């Protein structure tokens, strides 16, 4: 008798439960709601953007009051994703998210947010346009603490922008020193380089065709090793700036600051390990820095300012240092340089140029301008500007903020830029993306999406020097570390035969000057 009753009771119970679930008890079954004509506040601000079709879920936190929430994500009025949540933290499932983006390139994806606070409220929807062009899938950046005079562990990290996975490229945890200036040849990580400063591991690490080498780029001409680099499109030559820098602090306003005391640009040949010195890039009267090759390899863009005088008084004169934006033609076949031209005169704009980066299609030049100097990330006046290389017209990016912006780079299809900004907290730089259309207009910027966006709130590290690459870096951190610590096999650069050295400016002897940090 018992055995016969059990299945009946179980069936009854199961049916009852199913009915209850399907009929009336769904807490997110919203039929009555109040409509608010304002857009909801969300953090990060992922509203009214142009977003890549291959970006990982842009999770966010709803800042409106509520006990529970419902987010509907759709394109063309079709409900696609329905995300109920008991907390304001909205996590979008990756697979359906990427599917929507991929199937709706060029369209607008809408977000509709409902919040329950005694009764349901529906906020005005917002939309983000899905760009037809993807962003390069991988992003490489430095991850470090402020590191003013105290240097602790810093890392170079790689992030898959589509899957949100992060991995280490290099760390100073097992080697003492500072790592910086990771640079890739045309967004391709097969050819890359970065520097290690100080200690036994110091040197420039150059990886090419699965081979990694450590180079000491110092020569009789440049006592400082190479700093800001730019690969020539031929993949053999690299233009480096060589800088003597001075860090100092302000008593009021933005605290930290850096200036160059001297600088030049050299050409390093990665196959012959020779350094070529071009007089127009190593003038005694100017400080040249931030080299950047055009994609055809026929122009070198850089910044230069008059060389500081021997009696330079930091306290009085630091604001007078202003850099022009320059272009130097080059013939890769004959290896001859052309005539130097000034693209932006600091005397005309009243601003100082830095960090020029040419778009891979060669149409635009993205650069920084600030009140003075060449370290924009420490100047709240620093903004990004774009120059059309067809007509030399310049305009300020709408993606700027009141805080410093800089250290920008392009995706290989020239439609996306990534840059650092301090707009979040004024101290720790974060990474922002912006879509640049065919006319060179940069759209509203958005912060690098994280799986847990709230992690930004307790993240006391800076993200800096973002570089977009097409593929993951094919080298393991341990390989870099092994090469860095292998002092015996480190190679030393030599001056190209026939190089004539000219005396260096006296300012370089300043006791507080250091090599590029």
């Amino acid at each position: 008798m018992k055995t016969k009753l059990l299945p009946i009771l179980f069936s009854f119970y199961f049916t009852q439960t199913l009915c209850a679930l399907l009929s009336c008890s769904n807490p997110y079954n919203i039929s009555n709601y109040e409509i608010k004509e304002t857009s909801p506040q969300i953090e990060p601000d992922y509203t009214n953007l142009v977003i890549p079709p291959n970006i990982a879920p842009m999770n966010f936190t709803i800042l409106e009051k509520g006990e529970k929430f419902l987010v509907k994500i759709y394109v063309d009025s079709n409900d696609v994703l329905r995300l109920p949540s008991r907390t304001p933290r909205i996590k979008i499932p990756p697979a359906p998210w990427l599917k929507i983006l991929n199937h709706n390139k060029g369209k607008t994806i809408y977000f509709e947010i409902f919040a329950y606070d005694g009764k349901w409220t529906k906020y005005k929807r917002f939309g983000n346009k899905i760009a037809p062009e993807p962003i390069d899938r991988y992003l490489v950046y430095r991850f470090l603490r402020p590191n003013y005079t105290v240097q602790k562990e810093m890392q170079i990290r790689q992030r898959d922008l589509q899957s949100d996975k992060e991995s280490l490229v290099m760390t100073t945890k097992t080697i003492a020193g500072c790592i910086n200036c990771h640079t890739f040849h045309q967004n391709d990580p097969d050819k890359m380089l970065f520097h290690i400063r100080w200690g036994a591991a110091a040197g420039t690490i150059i990886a090419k065709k699965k081979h990694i080498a450590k180079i000491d780029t110092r020569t009789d001409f440049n006592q400082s090793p190479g700093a800001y680099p730019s690969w020539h499109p031929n993949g053999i030559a690299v233009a480096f700036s060589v800088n003597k820098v001075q860090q100092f602090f302000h008593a009021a306003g933005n605290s930290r600051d850096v200036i160059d005391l001297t600088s030049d640009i050299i050409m390093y040949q990665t196959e012959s390990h020779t350094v070529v010195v071009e007089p127009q890039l190593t003038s005694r009267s100017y400080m040249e820095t931030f080299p950047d090759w055009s994609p055809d390899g026929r122009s070198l863009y850089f910044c230069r300012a008059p060389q500081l005088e021997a009696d330079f008084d930091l306290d009085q004169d630091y604001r007078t240092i202003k850099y022009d934006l320059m272009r130097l033609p080059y013939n890769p076949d004959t290896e001859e340089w052309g005539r130097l031209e000034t693209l932006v005169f600091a005397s005309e704009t009243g601003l100082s140029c830095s960090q020029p980066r040419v778009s891979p299609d060669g149409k635009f030049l993205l650069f920084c301008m600030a009140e003075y100097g060449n370290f924009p990330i420490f100047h709240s006046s620093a903004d990004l500007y774009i120059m059309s290389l067809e007509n030399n017209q310049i305009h300020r990016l709408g993606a700027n903020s009141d805080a410093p912006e800089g250290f920008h780079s392009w995706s290989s299809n020239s439609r996306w830029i990534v840059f650092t900004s301090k707009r979040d907290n004024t101290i720790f730089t974060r990474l922002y993306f912006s879509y640049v259309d065919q006319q060179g207009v940069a759209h509203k910027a958005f912060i690098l999406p994280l799986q847990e966006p709230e992690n930004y709130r307790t993240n006391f590290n800076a993200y800096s020097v973002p570089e977009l690459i097409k593929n993951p870096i094919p080298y393991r951190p341990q390989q870099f570390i092994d090469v860095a610590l292998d002092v015996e096999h480190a190679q030393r650069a030599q001056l190209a035969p026939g190089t004539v050295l000219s005396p260096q400016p006296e300012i370089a002897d300043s006791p507080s000057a250091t090599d590029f940090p």
Partner: protein
Amino acid sequence: MSDAAAIKSNNWQSSILFSLFVPLFYFAAIFCYIRWRLDPALIYQCQVPPFLWDDQFFTRFLEFPGGLVIYLSHLFSQFYYFPVSGALILTACLFFTFLLSRAIIKHFFPKLKNSLAAYLPSIFTLILLSQYEHPLSYTLAWLLSQLFFVLYLKIQCMSAFIRFLAFMLQVSVLYYAAAGFYLLFAAMAILTEILFKKSLLLGAVYSLFMLGIPQLAQSAFILTTKSAYFYLLLPIYDYRPFLTPYILYLYFPLLLVLAQSGLLDSINRFVFHRIQYRIAIVFLFLLTGLAALLSFDSTMYKVLKVDYLARQREWHKLLTFVEKRPSDDILVAYQTNRALYHLGRLSSDMFSFNQNWRVNGLFLPDEARKFFSIQVSDLYWDMAFLNESEHWAQEDHSNYSFGPRHLQRMATISILKGNTSLATMCLDALAKTILYRDWAYDHKKYIDYPELVDTNSYFVYLQDMQITKNFIITSGYPEHDMDMLLQINPENVAAFEYLMAYYLLTFRLGEFIAKLQSATCLKEPYFPRHYQEAILVYLHSTQWRERESLWDGIHVKTVAQFNDFTKILRRYNGDAYTAQDELKKKYGHTYWYYSLFNNPETRQKSS
């Protein structure tokens, strides 16, 4: 009762005594030593272990072998802040060390289970814990390795295959949790297999696995070869008893080797009597007391105590402590000067305290600043110099990530500067700590209701002191920064007193007098004592008597004392060194004495 029964009864009583009461009293005594002598709050002060209840914080520790033990170490070390809970944690560590040691000894030498041999590892650990820098992670990792070995001993009766599987699992887990300490466990398991189980093959396989696992780890984690094998195992600090960790590591492996070689057979046959137990107990306490005495770092204790009192702003207690227990340490000098300033005694009593570090004792030199970054931030905070205080708080962040002190400082400065986003970040982080949660919640009100800043008198003072005119900070010349601060805000008392102290310590009396005459922040009818003394030295050496305004600020008693000072000197025909004892006795706390024996020029003149 027969003799045999009496002996048996005696042994039973002794065994109870040694296995129950001795450990009880022993560890109670150790608790008292840690609580009242060592003082766990000072260990906290030394290490300031960062800890956040936060997924992101935790995940960082999963990224490398040994991270789990370090995470636990940070968690437990939070409770050092409270001396009782700190002492309980450390005593518990020593107690578990004893229990695990006893279990191992009981397995191999049952008769020694309650002997001194079971206590020796605790004594070695106590020596290590007496070092204020000693991170708990080392002790936790050692305990974990011994626990794994005890578990391994429990399955000795099982088949070789089961033991092999257990070893593989244990080594893998231990390597990930405690990094290099897996070597200790592996070495002891190998010795057990080879020496006691006579299983050479298993020993060889274990050895291969032991050597291979770091190679495997190098492909999964970022490790150099050295760190892959030895991370955490090799102490990173220069321990005073530098051999102690190695003795602790080798203790059981050596014991196993000695046991197998037959050297300990006589001990195994030994029958303890009550009198021998008593002697052993006395010897145990004596040995532990000696170890505690020798390993206690009194210099470090003094420095940390002073720094701790400065952190708690217990300025009176700080000065009393320094008077009772003088120290030559630069941080002690630095914090003493801060205490003097806060008690309004810097300009009248600074030469009553050790000023051998001269200007470095006021501002700390560059090389020390990098290490004591938060203390430098504190000084600039005293001066209401927010940019520099923030700068050094950030240096401290680079030094010691997630340190509560710099987070508090950055939060407060950001509130004052109106940088609510950074203030919120710092307060959110502090809200995830164990010790500073309440502080964080309390300070969030200044973000939610910015007008409340005006109700906090110290915040109002700091805002009033803010400088609007920028200048370039020259950290190598702090007097320049003080001077600039004063030019912008003449009411900045801290900047004024530190600048004047700087002039006194560098014997730049001309600039001292000039600054004194233009000072607006001196309200008393008489100058502070050291200023009066310095004026007299200056007037005496320059024969510049017509400055009547200066004379007004000098008390006749000071003039009389100065005359007495010079009289004593004259009595010794101007020979300062012959007169030193008498001068020190009567005027050792004056600027005259300091000036005479530290200023090369004055010394030359007097001689």
